[in-house]
């Protein structure tokens, strides 16, 4: 790929996001969380599992937000701000990895099934239907229960299921594009199938691809939060959902509103940022939406 192509691509994406208020908001939030995730170990004021004492020497259990502990402390005396910052890294990592891998799977299945049709299409779609029949969170739970509480099993479990929606939608789009004239012309010229699929069709479904990339990452974050809240997460790598799980099992849900508010707001911000960005791409992929 030449540099100019990549540059044009990036400029085009910037224009799409810039032209949409939702998209801008989403992009700013994403940048914010991305930066925190990158710099996490350097900006967290305290250790993750460190039980802290206040200036008087007492164990700082369940303190409300104050100057000393900007976001308060947990039932074990741990600083919530530090936990939040360090958890950002894990959450973003899981979301990005699962989201990107799942869109790779889904896009390729959709492209191949849509382009080749026939037997291949039937096999792929039957398989997709089977995956559609599996309830998402229970599958995650079963997998974690069987294989152990590890961050990689969470990622694998999410990737196994989330690709299903994008596969169907992309396949439908490819099927409509494949009849178009420029594809027929490319075939007549003797283009290889590979080149047609990845050189001609894929660039034309790019807004749809990016839309579902954003959605997949959003759904991954939500799924991971849900699984963590139920206790099916890696105890060594804290995520925002994991913080809420700790809150739930400590039984302090009635009183510790600060412990509840901060991870929840972070999850909501991150996911809605992704959803807003995907809405910006939706207007590109479906221009009729913009005129409405």
């Amino acid at each position, binding site marked *: 790929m030449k540099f100019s192509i990549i540059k044009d691509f990036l400029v085009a994406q910037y224009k799409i996001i810039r032209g949409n208020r939702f998209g801008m908001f989403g992009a700013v939030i994403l940048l914010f969380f991305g930066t925190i995730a990158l710099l996490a170990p350097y900006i967290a004021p305290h250790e993750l599992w460190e039980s802290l004492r206040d200036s008087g020497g007492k164990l700082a259990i369940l303190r409300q937000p104050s100057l000393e502990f900007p976001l308060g402390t947990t039932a074990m005396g741990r600083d919530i701000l530090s936990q939040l910052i360090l958890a950002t890294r894990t959450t973003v990592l899981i979301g990005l990895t699962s989201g990107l891998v799942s869109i790779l799977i889904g896009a390729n299945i959709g492209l191949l099934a849509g382009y080749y049709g026939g037997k291949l299409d039937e096999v792929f779609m*039957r398989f997709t*239907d*089977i995956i*559609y*029949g*599996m*309830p*998402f*969170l*229970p*599958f995650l*739970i*079963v*997998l*974690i*229960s*069987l*294989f*152990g509480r590890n961050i990689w099993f969470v990622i694998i479990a999410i990737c196994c299921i989330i690709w299903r929606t994008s596969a169907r939608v992309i396949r439908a789009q490819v099927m409509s594009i494949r009849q178009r004239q420029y594809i027929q012309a490319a075939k007549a010229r003797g283009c290889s199938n590979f080149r047609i699929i990845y050189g001609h069709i894929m660039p034309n479904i790019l807004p749809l691809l990016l839309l579902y990339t954003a959605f997949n990452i*959003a759904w991954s974050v*939500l799924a991971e*939060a*849900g699984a963590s*809240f*139920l*206790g*099916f997460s890696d105890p060594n790598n804290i995520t925002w*959902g994991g913080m*809420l799980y700790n809150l739930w099992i400590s039984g302090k*849900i*009635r009183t510790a*509103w600060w412990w*509840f508010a901060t991870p*929840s707001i972070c*999850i*909501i911000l*991150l*996911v*809605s940022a992704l*959803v*807003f960005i995907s*809405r910006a791409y939706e207007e590109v992929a479906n221009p*009729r*939406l913009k005129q*409405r």
Partner: protein
Amino acid sequence: MQEFIIRRTIYTLFTIFAVATILFFIFRIMPGDPTAQVISPALDEASQARLKEAFGLDKPLYIQYALYLKGLVTLEWGRSFTTSKPVFDILKYRFWNTVFLMGAAMSFTLILGTALGMIMAWKRGGPLDVSATVSALVLQSAPPFVTGILFLMVLSYKLDLFPTGGMNTPGERLPTGIAMLFNKDFLHHLVLPAITTAFYYLATPMLIMRDSMLEVTGSDYIELAQAKGLSPATVMIKHAARNALLPVFTVSSVLIGFALGGQVIVEQVFSWPGMGQLMVEAASSHDYPVAQATFLLLAVLIVVLNLLADISYCYLDPRISVPGGKK
């Protein structure tokens, strides 16, 4: 039409069979000794061997598979590892609890969502449209346990308007059967979990209805209706909405599938004794027969609901020419 229904039903059965098979293999390839989950290694050799035989764990894999399938069909789903109760009995009770909660939540979502979507399309671009879009998207971004806990904190703990969980007040017994649905205590406990689930999924039918309405209002027959002099409300409801509902129907089957999976969280937050909570309990305590059966039951429910939605869609939209059916 008939051929289509038969084909779809066979296809559904095949999907269920495939999910059951996948489940069988997942539970067999897990690390560690599966027998250690059933049979305490502290027992002596003879007891262990006897228990192994009783649970069928010593037979070759393909025989275990055949026994597994046979057990599924004959409703012999094994016994729980933790309580030794037959799994079928446990599920029989929990199944309906989940179905009732789902039914309430989904009805609320679909009715409120389509109504809102219709109004939003009518007053397109106005403050209602924009604010509803944003709030729906934000609600969709909040995991159900966040909204659930928020409701709990505000409506239950602070204002004491609703109970904090469970299906009934401890000590009070609910009537069994249909009478339970009309019991005041039951309904009182149903409200919060139902709204929590409903709000989470509200965005989808709402936005789809809105987009569908906008597409429909450009059509000729709407122009004719307006030219006929019908009131805007009549045009909107009687003509536009009826036709705009179709995409909502298509998406509702997928929605119910997603919702069934997400029930786990809401049931856990509100301690609602349904299949979702059972799933979490079973998975945490490694009670594999229960976990396996619950998962399979959820999957079957999803697939069957999708099938029903597909079949009903055929009847609803006469424009679809089904291969082999009448046009």
